């Protein structure tokens, strides 16, 4: 089985699905001739031609807006927004249109599209290139939000996302793009949306993480009897798996890369409190970034949750 990084795994997913289904079309800035700024779509223009791998003008709103029209009329567009910090002009299209076309048209039209975007901090890039505002998207019913944590998951989740009948926001943790290499099967396999993954079994505490925080969490829990859940789909998230684990361990730590306030950790925490509080031995703890705009590289180590901060949370919760 070939060993590859996440960029190669996503590229493989796109290539295989485009070969399998001619409704799948890529569009975005620099995705065709340049193969994408992270080279995720490298080689796809040559393989599938300019009608299916489309370099668009610099127009985030129209990239997603056109994808809505394409999806409504028989295509399965995969739109790339070059960095998550540039998705904001397209929020109107995502929130006001893609998310509610099925509902607005009472099922006559739908928008089976995917918006892929690199997400997260730690790549020494300029401002607005390292955002993690995933919780914004989780507040909007009608779309799904997915974050892979490694190459294997990335390929399987992207295939599920493209085949999903509703819009999916697919967030690719840039810090992991080339960090993790693992076996990725060629050919058909999918990782289902809406299901979390047990990344590590344990009995004393449940740690919930997603995206690039999973990698740090797995380092932090070494030496602890910790269960680690890789959330994978942020919306709709897998309540059942979280609750089962927390009812077993009686302790919960949530690790998120985004600022603390109103992050997805708040919703997870509320869910655990509402439905499992009688199983809890202590408070639900969140390890998150502070409530400040994400800094540039020189300050980012003060900002991002570190292995040490995750370990401190483990030590604290294990006192109960």
């Amino acid at each position, binding site marked *: 089985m070939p060993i590859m990084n996440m960029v190669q795994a996503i590229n493989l997913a796109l290539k295989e699905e485009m070969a399998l289904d001619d409704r799948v079309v890529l569009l975005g800035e620099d995705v065709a001739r340049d193969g994408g700024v992270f080279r995720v779509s490298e080689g796809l223009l040559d393989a599938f031609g300019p009608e299916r791998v489309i370099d668009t003008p610099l127009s985030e709103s*129209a990239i997603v*807006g056109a994808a809505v029209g394409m999806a409504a009329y028989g295509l399965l567009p995969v739109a790339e927004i070059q960095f998550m910090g540039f998705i904001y002009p397209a929020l109107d299209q995502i929130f006001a249109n893609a998310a509610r076309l*099925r509902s607005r048209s009472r099922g*006559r039209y739908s928008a089976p599209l995917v918006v892929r975007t690199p997400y997260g901090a730690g790549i020494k890039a300029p401002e607005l290139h390292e955002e993690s505002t995933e919780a914004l998207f989780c507040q909007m*019913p009608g779309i799904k939000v997915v974050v892979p944590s490694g190459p294997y998951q990335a390929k399987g989740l992207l295939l599920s996302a493209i085949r999903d009948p509703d819009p999916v926001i697919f967030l690719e943790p840039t810090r992991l793009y080339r960090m993790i290499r693992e076996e990725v099967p060629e050919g058909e396999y999918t990782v289902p949306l809406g299901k979390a993954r047990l990344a590590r079994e344990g009995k004393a505490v449940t740690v919930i993480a997603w995206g690039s925080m999973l990698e740090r969490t797995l380092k932090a829990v070494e030496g602890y009897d910790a269960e680690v859940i890789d959330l994978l789909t942020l919306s709709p998230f897998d*309540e059942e798996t979280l609750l089962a684990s927390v009812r077993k361990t009686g302790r919960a730590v949530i690790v998120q890369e985004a600022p603390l306030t109103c992050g997805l950790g708040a919703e997870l925490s509320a869910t655990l409190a509402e439905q499992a509080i009688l199983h809890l031995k202590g408070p639900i703890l969140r390890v998150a970034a502070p409530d400040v705009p994400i800094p540039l590289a020189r300050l980012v180590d003060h900002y991002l949750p570190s292995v040490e901060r995750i370990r401190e949370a483990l030590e604290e919760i294990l006192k109960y």
Partner: protein
Amino acid sequence: MPVNVIESLTVKRLEILDPQGNADEGLLPPLPEEEIMRMYELLVLSRAFDERALSLQREGRIGTYPSILGQEASQVGSALAIARGDRVFPSFRETGVQIALGYPIHLLLQYWGGDERGLRTPDGLNIFPICVSVGTHLPHAVGAALAARIRREQCAVIAYFGDGATSKGDFHEGFNMAGVFGLPVVFICQNNQWAISVPVERQTAAGTLARKAWAYGFEGVQVDGNDVFAVYRATSEALAKARQGGGPTFIECHTYRVADHTTADDASRYRSAAEVAEWRKRDPLLRLRLFMERKGLWTEEDEKNAWQRARTTVDDAVKEAESAPPPEPEELFQYARATLSPRQQRQLKEIAERGVRNAE
């Protein structure tokens, strides 16, 4: 070095039928007499619907409603140029387009009465649901045209919007992308002079809206939007050009919103009665009626009968809309997603069990 003119712009305006009902015979579209009378009947039906919708709103039987009074020719004239397979992207003030294309009138009343079931376009009609978020549907039209090209489907796409939408980012992004890709899209702006209280002079410093197309590399034309023949001709030509691979066209229908922005607005706060009165003289229905009378196609009796038929049609639609059973709680969730999450399923169960007995 001399300074050379390297590009220059001309903007055409098309007028065929004047307010007195005189037509430029050389420009008249080749429509059979029955088709002209059908056109008029649809104008009457649109106006009859509009009048009834305004009174239903005052009686509390529907919610906020945006009138199309004065814009019937822009809507019916353009809609009649649309072919069956074409894809239509309306904004929220296109009742005349919907009626002319055969959208069931009772569904329109249901929608404006707060029942979302009215927004489900019947199969066989390619009309996108009304877009309330101004101008955001222009990129959808571009995407639908891209899909048609990629899937080798022979059709054109038509998008409707108002003068206010030309100030939005999606107008620029949509127009630009349509121009870059040379897509089969016809953009129809009903420049009705007012975006709620802001006049078109405050939307743009450009002398016409039509000229904006020039910057995107395709043709823009202004037509007298109260002249149903001019609108029909311009739209037919633009759609034919689109289908033949000639790319996008922008048509500015120069018209006027005679009524308030919606039933929740009071236009007397920001514009003069004299201005409104001036535009009422350019009534789009009257000039076609005068034309038909002059041609011997139409009598006083025909006029009476046409209104009678239109009002009966609308009355029947009102009855049908008002006899629709109330939507069930399941409708809240039915189209939220293709498959409900476990949490949504629980929420639906709770809401369905509670009913509305304790809504307050």
